[in-house]
């Protein structure tokens, strides 16, 4: 299990290098890029912020997209709370490392003891490799110079697509998401049809708004439109 945890950490390193490079090409310094990985430590959000800034978006638009993406960690924390049973400084540290990988590994175990072990080992390994890889990616990108010459402007959206694809397939990613969502009040099982529709609508909104709104807004608008697509009216009458 510890070997699995370290394996996850090493695999995440690949994303870390890509994030480091993307962040530099967005105009952040290597120091800022590293601090982002040390403090924010949730890859999707970090990628999104770099992406919006790279596209000329404002700080507010970048942070808005980043927070929307980071909100899933709240669900992970809710689900992990009874499993980890942490208090005080352990809770403070555990919160920082409550992310996709540590949650998935913790929830994949047979008993609470193993879950705790898996959580902390995965968290430690991912934290170490993610931050190491960020530094390598940032310094590498800075040494290489103009990111376009090396095709980074094509690599970044391709990286986003690689992150999106598993969420559009029937099973893959929701493995952990589905477990997480079992916390309180079961979620109706989602087929791949819903995420696909969401992705399509998001893309159409973004394309349509590019020439109309300031940079960064198309991405935010695509996220907020989700509230309409998914119909939140029943929120008012709780079951």
């Amino acid at each position: 299990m510890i070997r699995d945890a370290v394996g996850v950490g090493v695999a995440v390193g690949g994303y870390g290098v890509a994030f480091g490079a993307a962040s530099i090409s967005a105009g952040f310094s290597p120091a800022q890029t590293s601090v982002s990985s040390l403090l924010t430590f949730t890859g999707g959000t970090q990628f999104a912020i770099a992406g919006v800034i790279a596209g000329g978006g404002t700080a507010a638009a970048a942070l808005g997209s980043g927070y929307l993406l980071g909100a899933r960690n709240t669900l992970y924390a809710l689900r992990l709370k009874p499993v980890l049973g942490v208090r005080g400084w352990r809770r403070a540290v555990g919160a920082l490392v409550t992310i996709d990988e540590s949650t998935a590994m913790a929830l994949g175990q047979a008993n609470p003891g193993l879950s705790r072990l898996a959580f902390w080992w995965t968290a430690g390994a991912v934290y170490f490799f993610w931050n190491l890889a960020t530094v390598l990616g940032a310094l590498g990108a800075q040494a290489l110079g103009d990111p376009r010459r090396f095709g980074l402007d094509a690599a970044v959206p391709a990286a986003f697509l690689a992150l999106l694809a598993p969420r559009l397939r029937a099973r893959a990613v929701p493995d952990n998401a589905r477990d997480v969502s079992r916390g309180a009040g079961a979620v109706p099982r989602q087929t791949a049809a819903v995420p696909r529709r969401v992705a399509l609508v998001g893309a159409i909104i973004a394309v349509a708004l590019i020439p109309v709104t300031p940079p960064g807004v198309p991405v935010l608008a695509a996220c907020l439109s989700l509230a309409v697509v998914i119909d939140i009216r029943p929120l008012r009458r709780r079951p």
Partner: protein
Amino acid sequence: MTTATGWVVVLLSGVGCYALKFAGYAMPQRWFGHPRLRSLIELMPVALLSALIVVETLAAGRHYDWNTARLVGFGVGAIAVRRDAPFIVVVALAAATAATLRLL
């Protein structure tokens, strides 16, 4: 982007994302209990990534920017994704394709 703006974004993202994680440990479960709110949060990455792909591929500021090298590079990356290539292969193929086209 100025250096100061960069630091503001980095520090605010750090504080905000930590608060989001910590909230899950500190807040009562029922605040987040509604299934629709949960699906909303779970589907958020899908809408966000999809919009980011479009914007990163097609936009330069407020204009459409049809850059052949980038579009072809992204297309090759997309084929790699379709064929379940590892993440790092997808990224490398897209970058290498765009870089090569620009050399020609």
